[in-house]
């Protein structure tokens, strides 16, 4: 079963990027790809989100920000971005593209295809 499950994930374009323990709680790590960095965040309650590592304001690396709740504060000028939607927190406007993630048995899988809806891919 396990093997079959994994095969299915891989078939859908999922990439294994590490384990939950590799990312500090309320922290983030970066997955480097030829198309740019993807920030993978872990919240206090072990939810994992992935966003393009580029702030909608002036491109700051969101992975370097302070994570709180399900938001991150950009390190350059302190915009806040929702981890679950990629949208900037009001009243700021803009977004960072979301990337699908799934966790199976503590292993994190990431899809490199950004979700639709945000021009900042």
């Amino acid at each position: 079963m396990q093997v079959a499950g994994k095969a299915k994930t891989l078939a859908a374009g999922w990439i294994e990027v590490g384990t939950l323990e590799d990312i500090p709680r309320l922290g983030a790590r970066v997955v480097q790809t030829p198309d740019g960095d993807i920030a993978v965040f872990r919240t206090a309650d072990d939810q994992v989100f992935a966003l393009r590592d580029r702030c909608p304001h002036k491109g700051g690396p969101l992975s370097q920000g302070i994570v709180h709740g399900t938001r991150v504060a950009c390190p350059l000028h302190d915009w806040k971005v929702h981890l679950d939607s990629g949208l900037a927190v009001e009243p700021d406007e803009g977004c960072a593209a979301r990337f699908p993630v799934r966790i199976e048995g503590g292993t994190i899988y990431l899809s490199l295809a950004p979700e639709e809806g945000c021009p900042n891919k």
Partner: protein
Amino acid sequence: MKEQLVVVGNGMAGMRAVEELLKLAPDKYAITVFGAEPHVNYNRILLSPVLAGEKQPDDIVLNGAAWYAEHGITLHKGKKVERLDRRTRTVNTADGTQAHYDRLLLATGSDPFILPVPGKNLAGVVTFRDLADVDAMLASAKQFRHAVVIGGGLLGLEAANGLLKQGMKVTVIHLGAVLMDRQLDRSAGRMLKKALEARGIRFLLEAKTAELIGKQRVQSVRLADGTEVTADLVVMAVGIRPNVALAQSAGIHCDKGIVVSDTMQTYDPRVYAVGECVQHRGQTYGLVAPLFEQAKVCANHLAELGYARYEGSVTSTKLKVTGIDLFSAGDFTGDDSTDEIVLQDAARGVYKKVVLDGNRIRGAVMYGDTLDGAWYFQLMRDATDVAGFRERLLFGQAHLGDAGHGDIKTRVASMPDDAEICGCNGVCKGAIVKAIGEKKLFTLDEVRAHTKASSSCGSCTGLVEALLATTAGGDYSTATKKKPICPCTDHSHDELRTAIRAQSLKSIPAVMQQLQWKTPNGCAKCRPALNFYLLTAWPGEYVDDNQSRFINERAHANIQKDGTYSVVPRIWGGETTPQELRALAEIAEKYAVPTVHITGGQRIDFLGVKKETLPRIWGDLSQAGFVSGHAYGKAIRTVKTCVGSQWCRFGTQDSTALGIQLEKMAWGSWTPHKFKLGVSGCPRNCAEATIKDFGVVCVDSGYELHVGGNGGVKVRVTDFLCRVKTPEEALEYCAAFLQLYREEAHYLERTAPWIERVGLAYVKQRVVEDGAGRKELAERFHYSQKFAQDDPWAARAQGAERHEFTPLKRVG
């Protein structure tokens, strides 16, 4: 089925509460609104410009019909609620419209007070409260010539000004001896009177209205002394009374207003009330800013979040008569226990008075030049100690001298849209004006949240306020009495520091749990502050929480605009050697560092280093004998020195050696904000010691110690602390001063604002006069240094925090 919320009163406070509620819980209630006026929700404050012909009624609509429709709100316009039945939970209007509520919000505002004199019901006698009043006045102005305004307060003068602009001859009758006597003292009142007289308004002061004379329409006003004044229109602007009729008839406890608790609930917990109709802790309010705070708290409870509390407001006032600048706040009359400082220049029409209680501001009145009103208001609310700049207080925040400001409203009005208002955040006038209009912003805080203007250094606050005044009308600055450190908590900095020690709280989660944080794990504002407070409270014991540190401190390097980092090794006292320089040159070459810069702090900065490379560069630096310079931290930065008596023909002491000793003692320490030191060898002061947080100026007889300087955004020269004889003493005083600052300043408060807040006298008492206390402070500093002087770079070069510097994965 949704719960039913019924709102009585379609005015500014009621609809603001609904707006706030929709933000928090858009789907919780089916909302029904009753409004006695036949209009949608409009900005009452802007009635004055409508009367003056500067705006049209359409311009002042806040929420149009579409807004009600979009949110599914049933609006009963032009229907006054006549009866409230709390048993059946229904409200009823005269025409039989009925609505049932689960919760009820009363926002009935106030009624203008009508003098009980004969003739008060004649045609042509009006009040100034709503659009219907303005219509009546405008119609009279077309037909008639003589207007009398009874009441020389804010409203009365705005009415008089408007009627004058409509071409009427206006007389203001005022009972008191001073215009706007609730906001102004005698001198300011006199200047205002002169300015308005110059425009053509006639004043009768200390005049009591006895009767209004006329058959159908009013013809004249007779005063108690027998004088008669011709009048085709009489505007009564003699005060307002909270509109409590409906609440009272339903048996809800009322005094001056409808009595509410800190959660904006009346004695019937299903019934809430906000706005001018309300009495909270004995106070009623007649300006919108406090009402908006009430609305926010009320919405929080209607949404069943249940944590917000309204604790009262302090307010300030400005008059909205174009071309006249007036500001007042707090207690501006004073008493035996207060002092006042006054600046008066009748020729230029400038008057400023600040009332001080000890060295703290209790109130202020300004006429003619109000640019610094917001600053005084802030100093007053924060109870800042102004001893250090008392003589310069009246010259204003910019210390421009009293002549420098000009008429700020005219100035901003004449600025082009692309003029930059906020230099920190690069926000120009057009963007602010647009946001105020489109997003319906009223307060300085709202403009800050939406545009970021004035949210950083604050020096453009006056300009932003002037824009608010010219765009939205009125003045709305206000604030709650106690300042929480961020929206996650109700606690202030001082309360948190006290609680951490008193309750032995030793981790961030423990603080958040014990002190009932409103968010699960705080935010980017409170977590770094808590981390610092815990670190200083429990040295050696508290385990630093890396995830609560800003990236620069977490990565021990300074993030740059392109996401790379900078590396600044410590160069003790700014003195180096050829070997060190050679090592630095080799390392810079080895790692192809794009830019090498000599910093303003006598050190060398490698800029543009990739994060992954940091541990290796640090390893090499460490091998060459360098440690971290903490150029990235709220920490000890540099000790700038001059060559002193070693070389200089004027040097009195070995300033370089003392600087190096100070740096060796203090490096590695975390502080509330960055902390810089300087040691100059003589009073020529080449090391600029008198703009440092701690500065030493060597003199023949010893060492002069200076504190609280700042060379940054707002230059502040140090205060002289004391003179000592030996370098050992200088070190001890420095350690004690540092520890006092670490233990008591607010996080992100540099020594300069800290000293202005607590007062130099206090710092002197703790560090200079109390010898035993000084030694204890210094000991506590040295103890905490045992755990701090551990080079973070060496540790990371050897593999600590590896995850911070390596990607999770590389793909492709």
